[in-house]
C-alpha cells in the first residue's frame, strides 16, 4: 500500500493548561478530498496550524510524502508542496488580484515573465481574469476567498489545506467554491484537506470525513457513515438534544 | 562610595519613572507612542522657570500651575493631532508626535533661544542632608519623593476611581467599554491630561536643579521609551521599577565606565531585555 501523502501521528497541542489537540492521528491519501469537521472549538484550525508549521506541536509527528515536517517553518513546508489558506482571509490589500497571484507564482518561476504566465493560467482556472487589476482590498468576501485559493495555487502545490473556505458565502458562491475544489482535485490532481462547517457543501465532494470534538478525533469514515454516527450527532447536538431526538424517533 | 552611587541612582531613577509613567499610560491605552512626551517635560520646566524669572514664584509653588499647563497641552495634543492618527498605520502615529516634538522643540528655541536658564534661588537650592558618608541633596530628594507620590496617586486613581476603571476598560477593549456607556473620547483626553500632569510635576521638580533649555526634555523622553518598553507598556508600577533600574544603570555605569555612556547603557539594556522578553520585564 502506498504511503499516504499527509500523515498526522499522535499530534498533541497545548496552550498552557489547555489541550487543544489530544493525540490526533489521521492520514490523507494522494488524490483524495478529505474533510475535517467538528463543532466550534474542536481544534480543527489548531491541527491545521500544527501541520502547516504555524504551531510547533507539543508532541506527535507530521509527515508529508513520507518526510518528517514536524515543526518546520511554514515557508519550507509550502515549498515542499503543502500549503494552506486562512480562515480569516489575508489578501495583500495594496496589490491587485493579479499581483497577489504573482507573489505566489514567484516560488516556482525563474523569471518575471514565467511568473506572469503562471498567474494568467491561475486567473483562468479560478475565474478571476476579469478582476485581475482590481485592488485586493476592495473585493467581495467571496472573491477574497477565491483569491486566497488562487494565490496558493500559484505555488504549484501537491496538496492544499483549506480552512473554512466556504464560510460566509451564499448558495451560488458556495456552489462555485465546491466546483472549484472538485476541479482542482480531478483536473489538476491536487489533494485537498478541507475544514468546514457548511455540511451541504463538503459532504457531496468528500471521499472521507474526519470528525474532531474537544481536541480528539471521534470518528472517521465515508460521508454516509459519518452522518449516521452516534458520537458525531451527540457532539453537534449535545447529549440532551440527542436523547430527545431519540425519543422523538421512537414515538413516530 | 558605592552606596552613594546607588542612592543617587534611585533618586534620579524615580524622576525618570514618573516621566515614564505618563508615557506608559498613553501607550497602554491607545497603543500610541507620544514622541513629544519629552517636550511636554520641557514645557513644564520652562513654565516653572518663567514663573520664577518674571513673578519670583518658587518652583514648588508653581508646580500646580505647571501641571495645569502641561495637562492642557496634553489634551490639545490629543484633540488636534493624536485623534487624527489613532487609526492610521503605526508609523504615522509615531511620526505625527515626532513632528510635534520637532516643532515644539524648535519653537522653544525660536522663542527663548538655546541658552541654558537656571532657577538659581529656590526654597530647596543647595540644601542637603548628610548621613554618615552619604550626601543627599534636598532638591533630588524632594524630586524623588514627589515622583513616587505622584506615581502612587496615579496608580490609585487608575485602580480605585470610576474614571480609572473606565480607563482600564477602554484600554482592554474600546468597543466593549463604549457598549458599557464609557465616553471613550473623554477618556482619551483625560488620559492625555494625566500623562501631561505627570510630566508637569516632574518638570517643576527638575527645574530646581537642572538647566532649562529647548533640548532639556528630549533625552528624558528617549529614556522614557526605553523604560516603558522595559516595564511593559501600560504597566504603571512596571514603569516605576524599570525607571529606578535605569537610574541605577546610569549612575553605576557612569561610575565604572564614564558618564558619556549613560544613554548607551540604557539602550543596551533595552536591546538585551527585549531579546529575552519581547513584552518587557513585567509586560503582559
Amino acid at each position, binding site marked *: 500500500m502506498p504511503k499516504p501523502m499527509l500523515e498526522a501521528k499522535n499530534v498533541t497541542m497545548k496552550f498552557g493548561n489547555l489541550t487543544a489537540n489530544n493525540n490526533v492521528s489521521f492520514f490523507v491519501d494522494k488524490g483524495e478530498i478529505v474533510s475535517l469537521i467538528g463543532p466550534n472549538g474542536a481544534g480543527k484550525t489548531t491541527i491545521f496550524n500544527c501541520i*502547516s508549521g*504555524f504551531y510547533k506541536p507539543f508532541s506527535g509527528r507530521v509527515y508529508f510524502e513520507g518526510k518528517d515536517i514536524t515543526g518546520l*517553518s*511554514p*515557508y519550507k513546508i*509550502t*515549498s515542499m508542496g503543502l*500549503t*494552506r489558506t*486562512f480562515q480569516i482571509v*489575508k489578501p*495583500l490589500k*495594496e496589490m491587485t488580484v493579479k*499581483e497577489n497571484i*504573482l*507573489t*505566489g507564482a*514567484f*516560488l516556482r518561476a525563474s523569471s*518575471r515573465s514565467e*511568473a506572469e504566465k503562471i498567474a494568467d493560467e491561475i486567473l483562468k482556472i479560478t475565474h478571476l481574469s476579469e478582476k485581475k487589476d482590481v485592488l485586493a482590498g476592495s473585493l467581495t468576501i467571496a472573491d477574497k476567498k477565491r483569491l486566497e485559493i488562487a*494565490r*496558493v495555487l*500559484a505555488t504549484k502545490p501537491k496538496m492544499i489545506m483549506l480552512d473554512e473556505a466556504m464560510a460566509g458565502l451564499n448558495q451560488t458562491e458556495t456552489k462555485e467554491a465546491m466546483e472549484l475544489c472538485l476541479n482542482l482535485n480531478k483536473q489538476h490532481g491536487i489533494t485537498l484537506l478541507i475544514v468546514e462547517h457548511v455540511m451541504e457543501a463538503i459532504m457531496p465532494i468528500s471521499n472521507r470525513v474526519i470528525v474532531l470534538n474537544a481536541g480528539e478525533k471521534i470518528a472517521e469514515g465515508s460521508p454516509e457513515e459519518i452522518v449516521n454516527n452516534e458520537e458525531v450527532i451527540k457532539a453537534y447536538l449535545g447529549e440532551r438534544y440527542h436523547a430527545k431526538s431519540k425519543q422523538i424517533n421512537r414515538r413516530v | 562610595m558605592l552606596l552613594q552611587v546607588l542612592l543617587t541612582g534611585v533618586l534620579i531613577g524615580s524622576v525618570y519613572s514618573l516621566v515614564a509613567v505618563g508615557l506608559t499610560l498613553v501607550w497602554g491605552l491607545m497603543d500610541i*507612542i507620544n514622541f513629544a512626551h519629552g517636550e511636554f517635560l520641557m514645557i513644564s520646566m520652562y513654565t516653572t522657570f518663567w514663573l520664577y524669572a518674571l513673578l519670583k514664584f518658587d518652583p514648588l509653588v508653581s508646580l500646580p500651575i505647571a501641571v495645569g499647563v502641561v495637562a492642557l497641552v496634553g489634551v490639545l495634543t490629543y484633540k488636534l493631532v493624536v485623534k*487624527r*492618527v489613532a487609526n*492610521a498605520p*503605526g*508609523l*504615522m*502615529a*509615531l*511620526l*505625527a508626535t515626532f*513632528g*510635534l*516634538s*520637532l*516643532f*515644539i*522643540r*524648535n*519653537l522653544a528655541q*525660536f522663542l527663548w533661544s538655546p541658552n541654558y536658564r537656571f532657577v538659581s534661588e529656590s526654597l530647596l537650592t543647595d540644601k542637603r542632608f548628610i548621613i554618615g558618608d552619604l550626601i543627599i541633596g534636598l532638591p533630588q530628594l524632594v524630586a524623588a519623593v514627589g515622583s513616587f507620590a505622584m506615581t502612587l496617586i496615579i496608580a490609585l486613581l487608575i485602580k480605585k476611581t470610576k474614571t480609572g476603571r473606565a480607563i482600564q476598560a477602554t484600554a482592554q477593549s474600546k468597543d466593549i467599554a463604549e457598549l458599557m456607556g464609557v465616553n471613550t473620547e473623554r477618556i482619551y483626553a483625560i488620559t492625555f491630561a494625566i500623562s501631561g500632569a505627570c510630566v508637569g510635576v516632574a518638570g517643576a521638580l527638575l527645574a530646581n536643579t537642572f538647566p532649562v533649555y529647548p533640548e532639556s526634555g528630549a533625552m528624558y523622553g*528617549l529614556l522614557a*521609551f526605553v523604560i516603558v*518598553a522595559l516595564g511593559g507598556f501600560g504597566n504603571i508600577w512596571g514603569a516605576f521599577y524599570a525607571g529606578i533600574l535605569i537610574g541605577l544603570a546610569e549612575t553605576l555605569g557612569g561610575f565604572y565606565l*564614564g558618564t*558619556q*555612556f549613560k*544613554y*548607551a547603557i540604557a*539602550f*543596551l539594556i*533595552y*536591546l538585551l531585555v*527585549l*531579546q529575552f522578553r*519581547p513584552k518587557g520585564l513585567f509586560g503582559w
Partner: protein
Amino acid sequence: MKNRALYLIFAAVLVLPFAITNVNFQHVMIMFLIFASLGESWNIITGFAGQTSFGHAAFFGIGAYTSTVLFYKFGVSPWVGMLLGAGIAAVISVIVSYPCFRLRGHYFAIATLAVAEIIKQLFVSWDYVEGATGISIPVVEDSFIAMQFHGSKIPYFLIGFALFFLIVMVARSIEKSKMGFYLKAIRESHEAAEALGINPRKYKLLAMMISSALTALLGTLYAQYILYIDPFMVFSLEISMKIVLLSVLGGLGNIYGPIIGAAILIPLSEYTRVFLGGTGKGIDLMIYGALIVLIACFEPRGIIGLLKKRGKKRGALYAKTNA
C-alpha cells in the same frame, strides 16, 4: 512602464547645475542628491519591507568613517573605502537586525534608534578615530582617486548624480522583481507570505543589507565633500529623521516619494539656514515638524497620495462628462 517619468527627472536633475551656475544652488543640488538617495535606500527596508528604521544614520556614519579613516591613516583611495564601508555597513546591519526583526513595529523602530545612539557613543569614545574631535580629511590636490575637488562643485555633483542614478535604479528593479513582491507581501502579512513559501527573515535581512550598503556609499561622498566628520554630525538622529521625514512627505514605498520629499525639504533646510542666519536652523526644523504633523494627520500617503487623489477625481470627472 512609467520609466519615462524617471528618465525625465534624471535628465532635469543632471542639467540644472549647469544651467544655474550659482555655487549655493549647486551645493543645494548636491545635498538634494545625497538625501534623495538616502531616502530611496531607506525606502527599501521601510517602504517596501515595512520595517521602520529610525537609525539609518548609523550606516551613513559607518560609510563616512570607513573611507575617511582608511584615507587619513593609510592613504587608501576613498573609492575603495566607499566600497569597504558599504560592506561593513551590510555586515553590521545583519548583526543588528537579525535579533531585532522579531520585535514588533514600535519596538523595532526604537531599537534602531538605540543602536544608532550606541554606535555614536562608541565612536565618541574611540580614540583611534579621534573620538569627539572628529577627523579633518587631509587636503590634497584635485584628484579623482582621492575624491577631492576644490575648484568647482561640479565633480561632486556628478559623483552624487551617479550614486543617485544607481540607487534609484536598484530600488526600481527591486520593486518590480520577485524580491519587491515578496517584501510587500511580508509587509502586509508575515503569515500570508509564509503560506506562499516566502522566508520573511531572509528577505528582510537582504533588504536591510542592500539598504544599509547603499546608505553607506552616501556617507563617503558626504565626508569627501565636507572634508570633516565627527560622530555627532554623521551619526546624528537629525540625519536619521530627515531621511524618514522626506520619504514620508513625498510618499512612503513609492519610488518618486524620496525625490519629491527631498526636493521640498532640502532647499527649505539649506535656504532658511542661509537667509535666517543663526536662528535659521530652528525655523526650518519647525516647518519640517509642522509639515510632518500635517502629512501624518491628513495625508499619510504623502504628496504622492495627494496627487493620486486629484488624479482620481479628474478621472471621475472625465468619465462623468463623457458618459
